[in-house]
């Protein structure tokens, strides 16, 4: 072959290969663009009336509030005197604590941590709601929040995460035969790797298909690369900790919500070298640890309530608050699990006087319980049975889904996460239906302009209580504990018999009958005693002894109603105007209730 011919051949081949590669790349880019275009068409498998009418505007409103707090955090960082790295091991001296707490705050309120740059962690957990759900109409209706892909929706209420960092690593106590700790309602953030359940909880939503929705955990490191606060991240976690060689298509991949059929189930679609994957994983661990640092700080979990002032001798509970406290510990028996921190580890011949707290009380026992909540047919999750434009189906089982909480997690089942300890799996039947006992702290927190959670003559902030948001007021919550069994009826929600009122004189069947906690259910509390327990719960709201940060950011509208003209304008009947009849229920899907080990008795 002549040299000129050889050169021509090589040139033609090279051009051909380049053309193929370019074509392949352009094709991938186009595919991603197509995916993104499809993604922008809203997913709406819901019957009319399921989604609240103001959903779009309320999501936008919360995003503006998220940005406001993010800007405040940026200002705090800019004003922060930099810590000095000293000692062996090297430690961030002086302002190291504030540096990592501020970093966690910046991450929590960063809307860029989602494919569409439209959802931050705090989109579902604003400070003025006690770090619970910030949209009253969502709390009233679909209870779970839409994710980055509108409108894929999760299955549970956003769990208030103040004081969540104090939960221990999930453990099975052999002597007691009980599970303690973890984070999330089903305890699936165990803390097994980071030894910190709250940090591992923070690693869930960014890659949850119905929440922030990244398709790959490395997308977090990728977006941190361009975050305004990257220097703070590197100050805390080390220079070069984000130096990762990302492939050129990373942005295109991270722009597509997880679960899209284009990924074919691959959870690491970003092609990284092993070394860079390790770095990205480390950054994801630091993401969780930084957020945990913020959530444990006085910004979120400050022990600054009236009750804390009472313990310190600086506040005198009112007569109703004190009566409620005594009922909480006595007839109501609430502190059998919502521990008030008093000396309960008794030894022989010791008697608890109950006069002083031995620790800062967290009002949880870190355990789990099935309180027997009815299935809530307003939950949008039941309707996500068809694929969205990306081919993702949120809930293929529809109303055949049952939320078994901790039981499903121990089986590594649908809608939960992988159980890291196979020795625990055998215990699943004894915990079916159980959900984590949240701290009662800040359960009543509302924005200042909406001073209560209870409907009536004052403006109020609508919340949703328990994992499925079935209860809409604290009064209903206490009344449920008090009368669940007294007013039990063999019906589903929306079908209470004539002459009864749902949530007042009729409680529908539990969603899961197994393992119901019978400590409560027929407490014999009088109506006034229920109100007094509510008054006590309201003393657990932070911000009494010092201002609660960012509680002032609510720019929405309080709910109002007229008790004279509206029969549902009372804490007892609050939200009853939004009840819908539960459709005929198919049997529980075998993938859920038939997964081994078998539920005992079988769950229909």
């Amino acid at each position, binding site marked *: 072959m002549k040299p000129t011919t050889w050169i021509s051949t090589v040139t033609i081949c090279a051009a051909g290969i380049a053309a193929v590669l370019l074509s392949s790349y352009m094709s991938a880019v186009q595919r991603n663009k197509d995916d993104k275009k499809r993604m922008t068409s809203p997913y709406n498998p819901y019957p009319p009336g399921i989604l609240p009418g103001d959903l779009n505007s309320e999501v936008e409103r919360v995003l503006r509030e998220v940005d406001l707090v993010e800007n405040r955090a940026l200002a705090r960082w800019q004003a922060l005197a930099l810590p000095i790295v000293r000692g062996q091991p090297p430690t961030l001296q002086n302002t190291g604590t504030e540096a990592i707490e501020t970093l966690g705050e910046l991450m929590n309120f960063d809307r860029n941590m989602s494919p569409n740059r439209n959802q931050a962690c705090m989109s579902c957990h604003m400070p003025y709601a006690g770090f619970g759900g910030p949209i009253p109409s969502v709390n009233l209706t679909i209870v779970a929040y839409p994710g980055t892909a509108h409108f894929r929706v999760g299955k549970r209420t956003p769990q208030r995460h103040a004081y969540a960092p104090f939960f*221990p690593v999930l453990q099975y106590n052999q002597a007691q035969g*009980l599970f303690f700790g973890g984070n999330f309602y089903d305890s699936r953030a165990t803390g097994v790797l980071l030894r910190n359940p709250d940090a591992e909880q923070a690693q869930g939503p960014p890659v949850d298909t119905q929440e922030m929705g990244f398709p790959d955990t490395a997308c977090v490191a990728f977006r941190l690369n361009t975050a305004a606060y990257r220097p703070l991240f590197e100050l805390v976690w080390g220079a070069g900790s984000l130096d990762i060689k990302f492939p050129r298509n990373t942005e295109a991949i991270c722009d597509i919500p997880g679960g899209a059929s284009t990924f074919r189930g691959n959870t690491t679609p970003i092609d990284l070298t092993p070394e860079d994957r390790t770095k990205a994983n480390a950054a994801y661990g630091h993401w969780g640890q930084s957020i945990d640092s913020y959530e444990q700080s006085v910004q979120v979990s400050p022990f600054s309530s009236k009750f804390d002032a009472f313990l310190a001798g600086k506040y005198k509970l009112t007569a109703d608050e004190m009566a409620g406290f005594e009922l909480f510990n006595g007839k109501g028996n609430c502190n*059998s699990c919502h521990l008030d921190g*008093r000396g309960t580890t008794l030894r022989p011949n010791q008697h608890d006087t109950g006069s002083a707290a031995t620790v800062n009380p967290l009002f949880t*026992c870190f355990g789990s319980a099935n309180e027997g909540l009815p299935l809530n047919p307003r939950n949008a999750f039941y309707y996500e049975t068809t694929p969205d434009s990306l081919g993702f189906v949120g809930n293929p089982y529809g109303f055949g889904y049952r939320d078994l909480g901790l039981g499903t997690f121990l089986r590594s089942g649908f809608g939960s996460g992988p159980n890291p300890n196979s020795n625990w799996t055998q215990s699943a039947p004894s915990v079916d239906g159980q959900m984590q006992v949240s701290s009662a702290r800040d359960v009543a927190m509302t924005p200042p302009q909406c001073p209560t959670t209870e409907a009536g003559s004052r403006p109020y902030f609508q919340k949703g209580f328990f994992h499925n948001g079935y209860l809409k007021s604290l009064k209903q919550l206490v009344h449920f504990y008090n009368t669940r069994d007294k007013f039990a009826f063999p019906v589903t929600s929306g079908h209470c018999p004539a002459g009864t009122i749902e949530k007042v004189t009729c409680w529908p069947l539990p969603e899961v*009958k197994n393992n119901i906690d019978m400590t409560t259910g027929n407490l014999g509390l009088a109506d006034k005693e229920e109100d007094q327990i509510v008054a006590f719960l309201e003393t657990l709201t932070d911000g009494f002894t010092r201002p609660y940060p960012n509680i002032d950011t609510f720019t929405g509208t309080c709910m109002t109603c007229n008790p004279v003209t509206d029969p549902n304008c009372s804490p007892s009947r609050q939200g009853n105007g939004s009840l819908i009849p539960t459709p005929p229920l198919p049997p529980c899907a075998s993938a859920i209730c038939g997964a081994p080990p078998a539920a005992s008795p079988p769950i229909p």
Partner: protein
Amino acid sequence: MNTLLLKLAVTAAVTCLLTSNPIAAQLSPTTPRTPRVQITQGPAIEMTKEFLTIIRWTTNNPGASPEHYGVVHYGTDPKNLSETAKSLIRLNPDHASTVFRVRLDNLKPRTTYYYTVGSEEANGTDDGAKSAVKQFTTPGESQRAGRSQAWD
């Protein structure tokens, strides 16, 4: 030097124990087991409907693990209580007594059942308190009014 290190290690360990994480103290505690658990009230039928019966009784606080099960053995033949129902309750260490309540689902209407009650720790350790055999009769189908499509 080694002795010094050992002293430092022991001191650190003791200090750690004395100032141990206060959060650990908030786990539901295992309290001292009561030597003799006795039924002080009941058992009695708290409620009985066609679809649900609840049996209730009170004991002195049995202590030990924070969660216990009320256990009901029942059946239609007083000499063969072949069915078992268990319901979970949480002890309150501050309370002198403990109320056990057990749910019995899926009973037949207009049927007389015989039962005994007892209790055990979450790990299955028996509290040692047992009742004599008692009985109750479920109501008839009339209470099916208001029934809707549901699980059972």
